[in-house]
């Protein structure tokens, strides 16, 4: 089940990115998006799980570049959401190999897919809302948000290190 979901996510992310670039007539980037998806698929077929993280970074970079080049925002957002789901599902497939029984694996899979589906859908909708709704921010507020983001990151890392032992 999770492997089917992985392939679905991968097709979704590559398709969305390629389509986004294609709509803006940027054929080389569209081809690059398809190539990246193909590379990820090939790595998965060969069992090279370590490729997942670089592929996630690559797909997100492609989506970010797409926005820079003026590609469709909703499709780029779909590309990011799909890449995140594909990366997550590839990790899940690795972990499921250690389940003591098929039933235990199915239980884990069910909970995981439900959680991932919900988080991805909410993430996509939130992103879509952010693309549609326009809010004017003052420069001071922007700087404050930037500072908040940086301090939040360092706090988060410290917290995770402490909690994770």
């Amino acid at each position, binding site marked *: 089940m999770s492997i089917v979901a992985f392939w679905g996510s991968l097709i979704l992310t590559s398709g969305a990115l390629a389509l986004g670039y294609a709509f803006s007539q940027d054929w080389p980037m569209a081809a690059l998006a398809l190539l990246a998806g193909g590379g990820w698929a090939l790595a998965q077929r060969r069992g090279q799980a370590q490729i997942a993280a670089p592929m996630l970074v690559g797909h*997100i970079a492609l989506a970010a570049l797409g926005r820079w080049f003026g590609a469709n*925002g909703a499709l780029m957002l779909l590309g990011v959401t799909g890449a995140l789901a594909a990366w997550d599902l590839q*990790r899940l497939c690795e972990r499921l190999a250690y*389940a003591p029984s098929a039933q235990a694996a199915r239980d884990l899979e069910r909970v995981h897919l439900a959680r991932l589906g919900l*988080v991805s859908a909410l993430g996509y909708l939130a*992103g879509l809302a952010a693309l549609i709704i326009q809010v004017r921010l003052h420069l001071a507020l922007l700087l404050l948000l*930037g500072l908040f*983001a940086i301090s939040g990151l360092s706090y988060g890392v410290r917290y995770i290190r402490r909690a994770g032992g």
Partner: protein
Amino acid sequence: MRHFLLLALLAYGLLLLGLAAVSREWLALALPLVLYLTASLALGPESPRLHIMRTLSAHRVAQDTPVTVRVSVTNQGAPLEELWVEDLLPEGLELRDGQNHALGAVPTGGVLELCYTVSGARGEYAWNELRATASDALGLFRRRRAISLHDRLLVLPGGFPLHRLSIRPQRTHGFAGPAPARLGGPGVEFYGVREYQPGDPLRWINWRASARHPRALFTSEFEQERIADVGLILDARKRSALHVGDQSLLEHAIRAAASLSESFLQDGNRVGLLIYGWFLDWTFPGYGKEQSERILRALARTRAGDSIVFETLDYLPVRFFPPRSQIVIVSPLFGDDVPTLIRLRARGYSVLLVSPDPIAFEISSIPASAEKVLAVRIARLERVLHIRALRRAGIQVVDWAVDKPLDQAMHSALGRLSHLHGVALQQEPLT
């Protein structure tokens, strides 16, 4: 942690880029990542509260016998969406079947079970720790716990089949046993003749001797058989532990020691064990099955020791053994050991040396050459001279090529010597 950092960096990269470029599109791209991280953090697990039980199908097995290990992990805390459990295997044990780790969702009161089979070579193995990692359903945020859980498995050395061994120590105990006591009395073997005393059974009267002396009657005496003290010494020095491929001469010596102790204990003797190697591992003398178990445990733990102090047998603590008792030494025999063994004999001990032949053991691993032939001849000559010196001193020597059965070597050596009351005088050819 690695995954969390990766996502956090990506999300913050996009956020900062969006803020720097004042572009809501990039901020929007970061939102799925931010939501994913938030969900993982918010729904992250508490530190797992687990009750763990490990059961072994046996705690004491023979070499290479499979042992099934079952681990049952019960969740006594909040439900765990993903729990990864790994039972750390003791070093040296081989996993033969199943897995020593598992992943599963465990609700409150739920149980995650591991079942695997291990086997190993002779030794003592200890399980000390089990690692449990709880994570959220997305597998991003984890809490680890190392749980102390101790269990031991003893893999005992296998013995060789041995027939009953006859020993003749100078001193025996008061209880009936198998060792000739050098005293007249009830027994089986003829010992001597003495004048008839009232109360002697009539069937013990020696009519032939009585016929020679018309006015007196004579009674036959038999040699009493009693139990004896046997001190077993295993040479576990580093230089005695020769290796050829995956075979070790020390393993043969350990198996021989196990067989000998079993045989002596079965005859009712009091047996003690001294392992001379890394340190002096002394198993106090005792009788019966419990002593057999103690000795087997000590042998199971034995490792070759590389100690400068115990490099030679000079520090052999002979006072551990009762005076004039039987000492059985299992050692490949080195030239500098000969004087020590002769001194033991001079102190009144009956000494039996069971010597696994290191030359026969090593010979197959050396490629054939003219030098090999010469070297083997010299080594053999030296060994024969050492053995001859020991036999001259009254030490019984069993020269055992380890590819031959120990029983055969013991009985061919001791059978001949028993006629000479434990004193070896036979000559061997030098080549």
